């Protein structure tokens, strides 16, 4: 959460959390129930039940210059911990734009499950990779759509 050194696992976790944060609720619900293959999700305790609040979005023009307040965005976040007998029960964290509490719950649950070593490979293949591919396809489609309308301006050299 805070500025911890980026170990390979934390970089990976950041990547899958980004995928979960960008996935709409319906897709997430379907993908998670498909990945769990009918097994009911494990029990968990809320450390922070889903809550909606405002976050100040800050920006810099051109990536440099002084940061300014761009505006406030509605975000929903949640933190849960799986109930397990192990000393270190995995903790799932989720945060996304909007006010969908169920979506935060699903994303936090998926984040926690992905940290279980015995489930990681299966879930990553069944859940994260399809969702990531879907997101990438959407982005490419949008980029292509925008690119097709690109207009290049140039001035003809007038001969004289």
């Amino acid at each position, binding site marked *: *959460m805070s500025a911890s050194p980026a170990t390979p696992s934390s970089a990976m976790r950041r990547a899958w959390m980004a995928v979960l944060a960008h996935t709409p609720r319906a897709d997430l619900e379907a993908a998670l129930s498909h990945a769990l293959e009918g097994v009911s999700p494990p029990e968990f*305790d809320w450390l*922070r039940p889903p809550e909606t609040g405002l976050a100040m979005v800050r920006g810099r023009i051109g990536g440099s210059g002084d940061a300014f307040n761009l505006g406030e965005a509605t975000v929903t976040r949640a933190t849960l*911990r799986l109930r*397990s007998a*192990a000393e*270190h029960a995995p*903790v799932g964290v989720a945060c996304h734009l909007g006010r969908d509490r169920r979506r935060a719950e699903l994303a936090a649950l998926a984040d926690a499950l992905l940290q279980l070593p015995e489930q990681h490979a299966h879930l990553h293949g069944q859940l994260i990779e399809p969702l990531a591919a879907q997101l990438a396809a959407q982005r490419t489609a949008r980029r292509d759509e925008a690119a097709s309308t690109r207009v290049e301006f140039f001035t003809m050299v007038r001969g004289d």
Partner: protein
Amino acid sequence: MDNLTKNAMNPSQIALSTLAPGFTDPVHDTQAVFRTLLDTLSRPGTVGVVEHVLPASQATGTHRWHADLAALAALLTLCDYSTPVWLAQPDAALASALRFHTGAPLVDDVHDAAFAYIHDAALLPEFEHFSLGAAETPEHSVTLLIRVDALSGGPQIVLSGPGIERTTTISPVGLPEHFWRERASLAPLFPCGIDCYLVCGSTLIGLPRTTQAKVN
């Protein structure tokens, strides 16, 4: 095991895997606790009870903090990112819970603290080290939460002042003798001063800066 060593080595990391949950219903629970805190501070000497706000049974794998329930509930209610907290005795579980649930920064310097929790009253620092506020900003003083062994059964203290019709008597156990002496020495500095809560289990007594205490 990997996480354990990492957390032990890096105290700035919140130990999430052993963190205890906060209020189950944050809005209403904090309102109820705030009401209790306000009532006990406006009627010095009355005993306030903090009940049914934090989960009684702890989830598995949770590290229990040592702090008493009332102190913890008060800190979770009053603290936010703008109120630095000073813990007189290190308590990793309490520190993690405060940082996670309230976002309050933990400070090493007593003078910077807006709230201080003293688990062992015998180790209470001298009052001059705390922030007393300034004449223009008396609200910038510290509020102390001092854990005592019991709220009755100790030496009798007669209280008088605003919020008390004539006098009222309390008898907390476990406060050092210099507490009352140093507290009395702050009285001429009003409006600056220090507000205290004496905490024991789920009960607490408020001692605002305006209350005069006489040790019998």
